[in-house]
């Protein structure tokens, strides 16, 4: 796909984030969509392409009153929205539609109008993982961590520092759920969830949503907001079973999606001003930094512990506070995209000065899927 032919012209989160006891999941989709449409200065009738995950496109389109000519219901977990951006950019370039709305919402905490996740007993996961006591992401996502630590010499303190640094970013963000400063000792003394991970190394569980609107770069200049161009994209899927990853030393899905996006954008790692790596748990930024090629995996723990990703550091990472401190409704990818767009528009609460290129990397399931988007604010 060619770089910078499609742009984000509308972006918004739900009016509230956190605990939202007065709205169903479907209404949160609508709230985010209406906010994004207002942000773009459009009418609902201008939307001719639509994508969402978990909820079906027909559910959300009917509720909103949208009559699309292009739909995408790709639902591969929390990075589905990165894949939607990639697919939407291709569809707009191919002339299948002009203006795409992508929505995410999840009543992850309040569980209003949200189907519970279940694992069928005759699925491969139901036969070969569930019987051994896995029970939700905290018991599954950290399973590779001890091997990763042993292979690369990563320490518990380094993995704790991920949460500490992201709390520093969250402290600058009025909408972040958790803003009080924490120390490495606080992290290592927090309640054990699934050894080696403790409470402060696990994502929040919240309600919320977000929406994006994309159109061609040629049209984008006529919109009220500064366009944010899609410079490069990548995607892949690996396995729905964490036990069946090719290795616990890296994510094959990350290693496919990330380099694809960098190649398409034609950028080198030194060109990246701002980085988002979906952090459902504290090890993900380490996997991401290594698998996306920023540095050897061995160096990732020290890199974060030494402060390189904190405010003022040379590689600002997860600048909204991330899934660990900002919010995590269950499928956090949309919020990572929203933060990249804010940074490229220059309006983020913790704005990175003069940022021109933002890389936004998402994960779906337990390393099951991945999507990477490179954004720029220069065409």
């Amino acid at each position, binding site marked *: 796909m060619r770089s910078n032919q499609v742009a984000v012209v509308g972006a918004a989160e739900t009016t509230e984030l956190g605990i939202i006891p007065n709205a169903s999941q479907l209404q949160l989709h609508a709230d985010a969509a209406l906010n994004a449409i207002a942000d773009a200065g459009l009418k609902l009738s201008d939307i001719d392409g639509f994508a969402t995950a978990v909820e079906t496109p027909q559910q959300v389109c009917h509720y909103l009153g949208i009559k699309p000519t292009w739909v995408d219901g790709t639902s591969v977990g929390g990075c589905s929205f990165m894949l939607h951006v990639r697919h939407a950019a291709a569809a707009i370039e191919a002339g299948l539609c002009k203006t795409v709305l992508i929505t995410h919402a999840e009543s992850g905490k309040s569980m209003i109008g949200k189907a519970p996740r279940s694992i069928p007993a005759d699925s491969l996961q*139901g*036969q070969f993982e*569930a019987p051994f*006591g896995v029970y939700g992401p*905290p*018991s599954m996502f950290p*399973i590779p961590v001890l091997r990763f630590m042993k292979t690369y010499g990563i320490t518990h303190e380094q993995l704790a520092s991920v949460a500490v640094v992201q709390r520093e970013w969250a402290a600058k963000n009025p909408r972040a759920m958790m803003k009080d400063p924490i120390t490495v000792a606080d992290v290592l003394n927090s309640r*054990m969830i699934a050894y080696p991970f403790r409470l402060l190394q696990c994502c929040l569980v919240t309600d919320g949503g977000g929406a994006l609107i994309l159109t061609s770069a040629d049209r984008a200049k006529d919109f009220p907001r500064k366009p944010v161009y899609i410079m490069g994209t990548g995607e892949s899927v690996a396995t729905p079973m964490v*036990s*069946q990853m090719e290795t616990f030393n890296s994510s094959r899905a990350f290693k496919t999606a990330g380099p694809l996006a960098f190649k398409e954008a034609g950028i080198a790692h030194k060109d990246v001003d701002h980085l988002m790596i979906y952090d459902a748990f504290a090890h993900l930024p380490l996997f991401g930094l290594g698998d996306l090629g920023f540095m050897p995996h061995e160096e990732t723990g020290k890199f974060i512990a030494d402060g390189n990703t904190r405010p003022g550091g040379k590689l600002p990472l997860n600048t909204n506070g991330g899934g660990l401190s900002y919010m995590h409704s269950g499928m956090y990818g949309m919020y990572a995209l929203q933060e990249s767009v804010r940074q490229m528009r220059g309006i983020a609460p913790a704005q990175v000065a003069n940022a021109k290129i933002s890389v936004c990397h998402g994960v779906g399931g337990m390393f099951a899927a991945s999507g990477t988007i490179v954004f720029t604010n220069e065409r």
Partner: protein
Amino acid sequence: MAEPQRARPKPTPETQHFWDGTKAGELRLQRCDACAHVYFPPRPFCPSCASRKVTIFKASGKGFLYSYVINHRPAAPGFTPPYAIAVVELAEGPRMMSNIIDCPQTPEALELDMKLEVAFEALDDKITLPVFRPAKG
């Protein structure tokens, strides 16, 4: 009130041989006749070369501890925390999720790369789970 039950696998036509095997005290894997790739979980073709000519065989039951978590909360129904959820790398190559028995569920006792051997734990008269214990000798 009945105790909450551990998640119980429901075999499919493609996996029945595996569960028949555990019930008979065998850990069964599959090997591709065309390219010799050994793989898990079960399927009637080779995920490496797509050949449908594959053979079911009895694995050695030996392996080592590849990685794990010790789950504290939330605990799955039928489990008393803390308990380890392990991934075992089998001598034949594939990895599988399992539990470690006859071993304290502590980071000190659960050493990565420790040698393991398969054991079998009957859930009921139809399903027997493969679990692992520290290898003797």
